[in-house]
């Protein structure tokens, strides 16, 4: 039956499909989205404290406050905002992207929500009770903070929640096949499935391995931190560190995949472009993630003594592969835009000017992709054993991870939220002008943070350090760099975050009511194009990828040159 209904899908716009999601499913989705938003608000609020502390010009460095706020900030931002919003996206993939689609079990969905919410509460109690262990909570450091068990326990709850909601998603996909024994029926279902829902299916094995590793890691860690097992802390720490990095590494790629999945939806919603490349190719690229992601966890351990150099070099070679699926997806999404625009008669470069730049969701998409590329190129030096020593553990790490998770993944999710809120609440965006500048401000702010932060990393500023002057003995130049990275980049990011929260919050209560059939207002209407010709090749879309590769090669060569000039030679 579901497949029958689904044949109508082609006749309905994506916006209509999203609007017709069953109210009960919508409610669950909204619960996750709101919990995610609240976590993000929390992460931004604590980030404000961090910006104040880490801007040396303000002279307010405070270790105790800094490490506590940093622990809370990263747990809220990296764990809970993503866990909640990505669960909402899973539900959307299971319902909104399929005509008449319903979630397999609402109760299971709510149970999963309860687990995640419980995890959030337990973790926050832990943080404010003084578990200043940062989100990594490495033993044996964790030994020094009595509240640490609450960090591990919270992680166990959120992992359980992630497991249950993913199970619910998977069960939903199973209901899409009527004759379970027929291979043809499965093939047809996978073929009909929206590419973004397919991306979610590909993420399932990764999510399950994260959950499994989390249990494997945090159950013993919790027991150890409670003093229930008497393993020597130092021995325990070595195993923890390795297992942790396997899990933590895979976690990064869930936002990467989800963000690209959302990009496919946004490009359709904003420009009306359809895929010109064979859908099976784009879908196949999502299958690359479960294959290339897990073995590359090694790149987090390039500066560790516990791994031999040979293994690190193999790890470096593998790490170069993790960019490939994302790079190709970016090409396809840009190509979809190019083909759509140029088929309406615009020239080889002229199409770029006519993109819907004033649509806040489109701006989120395009700026998110650009920021993703910029941040991605900054990782090159860190991924290679041969150059990692130059930046490992420096401020270059937060300087690339923030544009990736905030400027790219979160920004693209924000773009989706602009649609989600207006479509589901049947209201127009409040403050469309604010919404219009928000994506640009956020990505520019994060690029400033990334660029100057990376310079600080190259100059040697360590990450996760309250007082980067080291009591006055550190180089003076560090302060100027951090003043710009935190004081300018950080502050502007905060403002952009506040703009988003205000627009979304006000839309829910004060957005103009819109009749069900009316077109979307607030700059979110789909670009109206009249197709006059067919465009098959999209050369312009190749340019960002070529620039990316050149920049990566340049950074690598630059790293070797810097290391060759060191007054002390290492290795």
């Amino acid at each position, binding site marked *: 039956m579901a497949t029958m209904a689904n044949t109508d899908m082609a006749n309905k716009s994506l916006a209509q499909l999203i609007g017709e999601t069953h109210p009960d499913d919508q409610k669950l989705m909204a619960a996750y989205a709101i919990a995610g938003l609240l976590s993000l608000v929390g992460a931004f609020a604590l980030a404000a404290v961090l910006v104040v502390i880490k801007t040396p010009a303000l002279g307010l460095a405070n270790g105790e406050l800094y490490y506590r706020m940093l622990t809370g900030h990263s747990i809220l931002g990296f764990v809970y905002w993503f866990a909640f919003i990505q669960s909402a996206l899973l539900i959307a993939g299971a319902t909104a992207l399929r005509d008449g689609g319903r979630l397999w079990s609402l109760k299971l969905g709510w149970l999963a929500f309860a687990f995640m919410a419980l995890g959030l509460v337990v973790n926050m109690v832990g943080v404010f009770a003084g578990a200043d262990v*940062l989100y990594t909570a490495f033993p044996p*450091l964790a030994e020094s903070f009595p509240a640490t068990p609450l960090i591990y326990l919270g992680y166990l709850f959120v992992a359980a929640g992630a497991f249950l909601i993913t199970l619910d998603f998977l069960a939903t996909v199973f209901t899409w096949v009527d004759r379970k024994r027929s291979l043809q029926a499965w093939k047809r279902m996978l073929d009909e499935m929206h590419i973004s829902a397919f991306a979610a299916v590909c993420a399932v094995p990764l999510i399950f391995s994260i959950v499994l590793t989390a249990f494997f890691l945090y159950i013993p860690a919790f027991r150890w931190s409670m003093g229930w097992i008497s393993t020597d802390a130092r021995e325990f720490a070595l195993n923890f560190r390795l297992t942790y990095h396997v899990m933590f590494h895979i976690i990064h790629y869930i936002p990467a995949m989800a963000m690209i999945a959302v990009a496919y939806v946004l490009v359709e919603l904003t420009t009306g472009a359809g895929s010109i490349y064979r859908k099976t190719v784009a879908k196949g690229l999502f299958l690359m993630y479960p294959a290339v992601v897990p073995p590359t966890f090694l790149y987090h351990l390039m500066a560790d*003594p516990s791994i031999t*150099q040979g293994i690190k070099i193999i790890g470096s070679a593998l790490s170069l592969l993790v960019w490939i699926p994302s790079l190709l997806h970016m090409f396809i999404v840009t190509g979809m835009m190019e083909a759509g625009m140029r088929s309406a008669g615009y020239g080889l470069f002229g199409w770029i000017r006519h993109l819907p730049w004033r649509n806040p969701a489109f701006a989120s998409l395009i700026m998110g992709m650009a920021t993703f590329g910029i941040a991605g190129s900054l990782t090159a030096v860190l991924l290679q054993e*041969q150059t990692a020593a130059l930046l490992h553990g420096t401020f270059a790490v937060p300087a690339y991870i923030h544009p990736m998770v905030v400027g790219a993944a979160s920004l693209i999710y924000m773009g989706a939220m602009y649609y989600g809120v207006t479509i589901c609440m049947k209201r127009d965006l409040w403050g469309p002008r604010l919404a219009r500048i928000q994506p640009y401000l956020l990505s520019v702010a994060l690029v400033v943070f990334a660029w100057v932060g990376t310079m600080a990393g190259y100059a040697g500023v360590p990450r996760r350090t309250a007082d980067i002057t080291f*009591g006055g003995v550190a180089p003076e130049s560090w302060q100027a760099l951090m003043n710009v990275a935190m004081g300018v980049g950080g502050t502007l990011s905060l403002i952009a975050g506040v703009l988003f929260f205000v627009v979304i919050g006000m839309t829910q209560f004060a957005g103009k009511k819109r009749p069900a059939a009316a077109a979307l207002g607030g700059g979110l209407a789909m670009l109206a194009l009249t197709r006059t010709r067919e465009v098959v090749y999209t050369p312009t879309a190749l340019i960002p990828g070529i620039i990316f590769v050149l920049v990566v090669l340049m950074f690598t060569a630059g790293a070797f040159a810097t290391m060759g000039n060191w007054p002390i*030679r290492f290795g």
Partner: protein
Amino acid sequence: MLLIIPMWGVYGVLLPQDGGHAHGAEELVSAAEFADQTARFIEANKLPDGSVRAEHGKAIPVMAIQYAFKPNAVRLAAGEEYEMQMLSTDVVHAISVQMGESSYNAVVMPGVVTAIKLRPTQPGKYRVFCNEYCGIGHDYMHFSIIVEEGAGEEPHGHPGSEKPSLIKQDGGHGDHGKH
């Protein structure tokens, strides 16, 4: 993307050097044993100003502990070759050797020695900061590497510069230095 691999070849870093660890040694070392070796090394080599002078070809033990490095200043001679062997006796730390425009970073953890070969070429004082959050006092944890003019014109790579090791030995080099 894979164009990077030939680059490793150009810079001569495609294959692991002597098949071993860039900055690691597999042996697990107990904290007490290492603390003892460090103490003997400091005792044998310390100068009136509290720094220690390392000898070419001999391993330099550096112990990381919340929130200090021991010894807190190491004197090396330009042109010589050394091996710094580092171990944390409590939590995970890291070193970030500051060289003006950039830094060299490596993790120092409990249980596994971080062994780094180093060959200073220019005299100067190089600060080494801890760059892994190790507790509230993290931002006060640092030591110095002081590079002095080389003693003679001896080029690096002496005859008899056998791989210095503190871990595999049975006696400990440290205690038959100058008394």
